[in-house]
């Protein structure tokens, strides 16, 4: 791989210019590539690694509405649900879309009350929620602990296989004329005055009408190459994978009510809430912990043991089930836990779609479609203001540092 182009001065130019260069072949970049190509744009996707080599292959594939409080993220999640189920309906089988539903369980009457209160607001935003009492719990999940007080069932919660989403969206985009260049690192931007007019990469310069930063957890570094700040940071998560079990041992996505609190938390300390679910390969996935430790790749005994303990508390039969594998990834998160989506007024021509934290798989479909609408000059279906790239003040960042 050539790295001769990192310095200043013009590098060799790839013959083919593009309307849009997308930095990052993760799920967000892939969705944007698909919708932009569908809208007739000439798209080049570049990634320094392989396709789906980043966080998109290091997490799970939950498409959740249940874990979101009313607000812009829930709106984006519901919008994405519609994109998954309508725009992308004909491809759903390719990435194993399944609306299996989520069951959010509560250990105490107190947290049941919290669940009910959350659901009032969620219903108002368009989320479907069924209240589940103690006696009905085992009809949903026969192996659940008998000690739980109640639950809420969210039929809209669904799942996909994220790596297949990435691979197929990119395949479909290629079919629409897009180019995917893996093993190609973006090392700088082509500028004309303030304007971003393309990228420089280890494979040469790629001029383009617009550049989309979809570099996930590394989006802050890419933005910095254009001298703008986008505060995306890593939040580590571990997932446990068990030995194969019979089908339907665990039927839904099951997690503890306390999880919702964790998702919205800014606490740097380790937080673990078991989200337990079965998979078609028979394995049961238990994920995921949340902690801010930079890009530390060493296995964390507190994280994985706490996940196991809480999963066993939910499903006592898991005690005897063997752990086959653990893995971890780094969620791209912003201080206010909202993604960054839209044009960057500080560097005209540069767009961002990053920082989706623990929901990027689910939110990717909507994000891709919205970005394509905005890029082609249309009015996006959803107001992008809450996701504006320049919404972060120094103060929000300072506060964030103080917590870290």
């Amino acid at each position, binding site marked *: 791989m050539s790295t001769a182009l990192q310095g200043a001065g013009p590098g060799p130019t790839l013959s083919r210019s593009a309307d849009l260069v997308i930095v990052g072949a993760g799920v967000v970049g892939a969705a944007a590539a698909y919708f932009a190509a569908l809208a007739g744009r000439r798209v080049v996707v570049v990634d320094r690694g392989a396709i789906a080599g980043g966080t998109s292959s290091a997490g799970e594939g939950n498409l959740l509405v249940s874990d979101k409080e009313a607000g812009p993220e829930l709106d984006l999640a519901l919008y994405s649900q519609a994109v998954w189920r309508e725009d992308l309906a004909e491809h759903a089988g390719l990435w194993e879309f399944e609306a299996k539903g989520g069951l959010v369980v509560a250990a105490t009457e107190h947290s049941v009350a919290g669940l009910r209160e959350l659901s009032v607001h969620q219903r108002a935003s368009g989320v479907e929620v069924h209240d589940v009492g103690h006696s009905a719990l085992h009809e949903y999940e026969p192996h659940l602990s008998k000690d739980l007080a109640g639950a809420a069932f969210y039929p809209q919660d669904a799942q996909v296989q994220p790596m297949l989403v990435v691979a197929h969206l*990119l395949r479909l985009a290629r079919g629409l004329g897009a180019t995917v260049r893996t093993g190609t690192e973006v090392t700088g931007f082509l500028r004309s005055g303030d304007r971003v007019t393309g990228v420089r990469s280890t494979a040469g310069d790629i001029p383009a009408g617009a550049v989309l930063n979809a570099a996930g957890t590394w989006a802050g570094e890419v933005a910095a190459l254009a001298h703008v700040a986008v505060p995306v940071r890593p939040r580590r998560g571990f997932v446990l994978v068990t*030995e194969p079990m019979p089908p339907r041992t665990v039927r839904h996505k099951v997690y503890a009510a306390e999880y919702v609190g964790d998702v919205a938390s800014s606490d740097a300390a380790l937080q673990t809430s078991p989200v337990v679910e079965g998979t078609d390969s028979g394995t049961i996935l238990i994920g995921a912990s949340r902690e801010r430790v930079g890009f530390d790749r060493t*296995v964390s005994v507190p994280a994985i043991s706490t996940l*196991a303990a809480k999963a066993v508390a939910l499903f006592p039969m898991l*005690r005897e089930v063997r752990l086959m594998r653990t893995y971890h990834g780094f969620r791209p998160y912003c201080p206010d836990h909202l993604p960054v989506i839209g044009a960057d007024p500080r560097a005209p021509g540069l767009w961002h779609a990053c920082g989706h934290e623990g929901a990027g798989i689910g939110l990717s479909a909507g994000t891709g479609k919205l970005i394509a609408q905005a890029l082609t000059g249309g009015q996006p279906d959803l107001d992008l203001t809450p996701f504006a790239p320049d919404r972060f003040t120094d103060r929000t960042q300072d506060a964030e540092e103080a917590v870290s």
Partner: protein
Amino acid sequence: MPHTHDVTVVGAGPAGVAAAVEAAEAGLDVALIDAAAQPGGQYWRHFDEDRARPEDRRGHHGWPVFTGLRDRLYVLRDAGRVHYLPGHQVWLATRDDAGTFTLRVTPTVRDPEPAGPGHGGTGHDGQDPVVARALILCPGGYDRQLPFPGWDLPGAMAAGGVQALLKGHRALAGRRAVVGGTGPFLLPVASGLAHAGAQVAAVVEANATLGWLRDPVGAVSAPGKGVEAAQYAATLARHRIPYRTRTVIRAILGDGRVEAVRTVKVDREGRPAGPEREIAADLVALGWGFTPSLELPLMLGAATRQDVDGSLVVEVDDLQRSSVDGVYVAGEATGVGGAALSVSEGRLSALALAAALGRPRMDPGTNADADRNTEAAGNTDADGTTDGNTSADKSAASGAAADPAGIRRVQARIRRGRRFAAAMHRTYPVPAAWPRSLPDATVVCRCEEVTYGDLRHAHAELGATDARTLKMLARPGMGWCQGRICGYATAGIAAWLDGRRPTADDLLPLSGRTPAVPVRLGELAALAETVTADPAGP
């Protein structure tokens, strides 16, 4: 707070037993953990010691070397100088900021459940961890495999597994066997089968000859190997076992179990170069060399490299030190090279560690003895002969740990062993074009039943140009064995489909595994009580 040992040795094969004995005799406080119920590893695997019969020794080379090491191990254990924990697998290895290592262990075979069958028992959760200031990892390896049609039929087994059944269980896995793959190890397997009464229909060797034993470097490096090979050749001749070189098993045939193999002559690259032939068999023993167990070194972050034979191995310096401070690695995990080399590496790692810790030898009384025995082990080749340096080494018996010359002698032996191993690997390569004629329906990943066609599809349609992406998109290596069996082959296929030779980057994504062995969630959950309480608990 558990006791902190000076060093924990993982694995009680040739490397691990030598390391543990040497370290303890140098005065270190040693723990030795091994998955097997008794010491010996793969090479010196033997029937239950409490029920031994004289004929169990048959086919065991260097047996006196082993019993010498074992006797010393048991003396040290009984004297409380080696905390020996057989029958336990290390499933998690961590290193804290102070450089202390904590190993979590689980019984290889669980005691019968006190609370009755099924679930509910808690008696096994929360085994005490083993803590030490340094590690010597000697996890060995297992047979390397290449997929081809029928290799997952019952009756097709790893060559080492067939050998393990013979040596460890007095069991013969079939009546009429074909042994196939490549490498000198096919010979002891064929010979073991014949001795045990099986008819060996053929040994099918992909490469050319036994000529490497005449290779000047190889022969000088390993004087005993010639004798060993001659013995095997004699056994083959006595039992009229055909040894077919430049031949591979193309397919195993059978309905629900092995009934025959189809072989074909091949050229240097492994391309078919002659008519096919069918040989009836009910047992097929398969091996393409060995490949190391890397889960523990990788879990700790040790750097790896690709060895001459194409396998990923741990990178060590001339004192067996890995890239991770305090982690020594010895034996097969640093490169496949046979039991004698493993013994030397185990010894060296212990001597180097003792020297680094500045430990003088404890009791000069037993010292001379100990050193003599160890030297014999180090010099002994697989057939038990010793090389000419023995007497010189004996005279240097006083405290090899403190004696740089002692370390240098072991180092020289290791260098010779490595040269020998490299000559062997060059003679018995995996044919470069092995995936060439694989039918799409061939199962590559036995656990998840991923076929070669699935992998080709993921490459051609989905853009999986490397092994990791293949794994993500088609699931090879995602099942029970976590890629131990198909990892090497999947890396090779990824490279083949991409038109290049496999590299360390292809092998690495299929080599790391946490936990190192499956462990019950109850055991993992039990650790939560011992670590920092978590604020978000239900």
